[in-house]
């Protein structure tokens, strides 16, 4: 089987979930509790986007990714901008892996 088929199947699955909310108009007439929930959703999404991936991506060195995001977080707490904390986290994780 050509690898093109699973690649396009995967694309189809991704496109379906992305297009759905733009065409399902019932999503616009939500009761207040759900509307409030939708505002919290981006914050709630951040937790599982970070954990447990940042730990299990570094088998045997579980602290390497944590050290990287800790440095990013400390920097971001004091200053705006994303580029510097992201680059600092790469350097930190690299150092943690090399130790």
């Amino acid at each position, binding site marked *: 089987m050509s690898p*093109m088929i699973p690649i396009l199947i995967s694309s189809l699955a991704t496109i379906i*979930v992305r297009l759905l909310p733009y065409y399902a108009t019932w999503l616009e007439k939500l009761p207040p509790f759900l509307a409030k929930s939708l505002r919290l959703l981006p914050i709630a999404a951040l937790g599982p986007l970070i954990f447990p991936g*940042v730990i299990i991506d570094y088998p045997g060195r579980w602290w390497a990714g944590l050290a990287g995001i800790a440095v990013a977080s400390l920097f971001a707490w004091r200053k705006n901008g994303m580029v510097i904390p992201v680059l600092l986290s790469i*350097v930190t994780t690299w150092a943690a892996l090399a130790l």
Partner: protein
Amino acid sequence: MARTLTFKQGFHDGLPIFIGYFPTALAFGLVCRDLGLRAWHAILFSVTNFAGSGQFLAASLMGSGALLAELFISVLLINMRYVFMGAELSRKLDPAIRGWQRPFIAFGTTDEVFSVAVLNGEMLTASYLFGLEGTSYLGWVGGTATGFLIGMILPSLLQLAVGVTLYALFTVLLTQQVRQKGVKALAIAALSGGLHTLLSTRLAVPVGWSFVISMLTATFVGAALIDEEAGL
């Protein structure tokens, strides 16, 4: 009068995402090479999917010889969060956005694009979103191609270390939320992250489901406990 978001602003906001995506996509290019795919397969993957976790999942399922139906359902589930993200994002769109522009905006909605666009708090114009999504897309597709072509010469430790970039990006977004909205934002993210860790690693819940369950639980718990005056 509220500030109107421009293409330039979108490009500016998209740059950190470009920088975050490039090395992650580089890692994806490496995975494709390991799977025995050709360069154009790897690029086709990123051009047609534009989804980090979904692509890594699909690639690993391809490697393990999974059935097409299994691949379809798993990718659908791991990307299920886009339904909720898209629902929220589409509420903030400029009403002037035309019908033909919507599918493109929808296709370009990734976790990072969503977070940056929605947390920015203004009405989202088509130019802004095309700037933001286009910059991110270039980082993703360009990174994949570069990873496939030059990945061989990158030291393996550095390859592992660049994997932290996406987590760092999310952490910075979370830190900014906690700074603006207080410790309740951290509590919501900690609840969802903790649940996802528990469900996916201890209770063997499939990753796609676990993600959706954790995200929705923390959202509803947060919405039930926090009142509007808290500013969240």
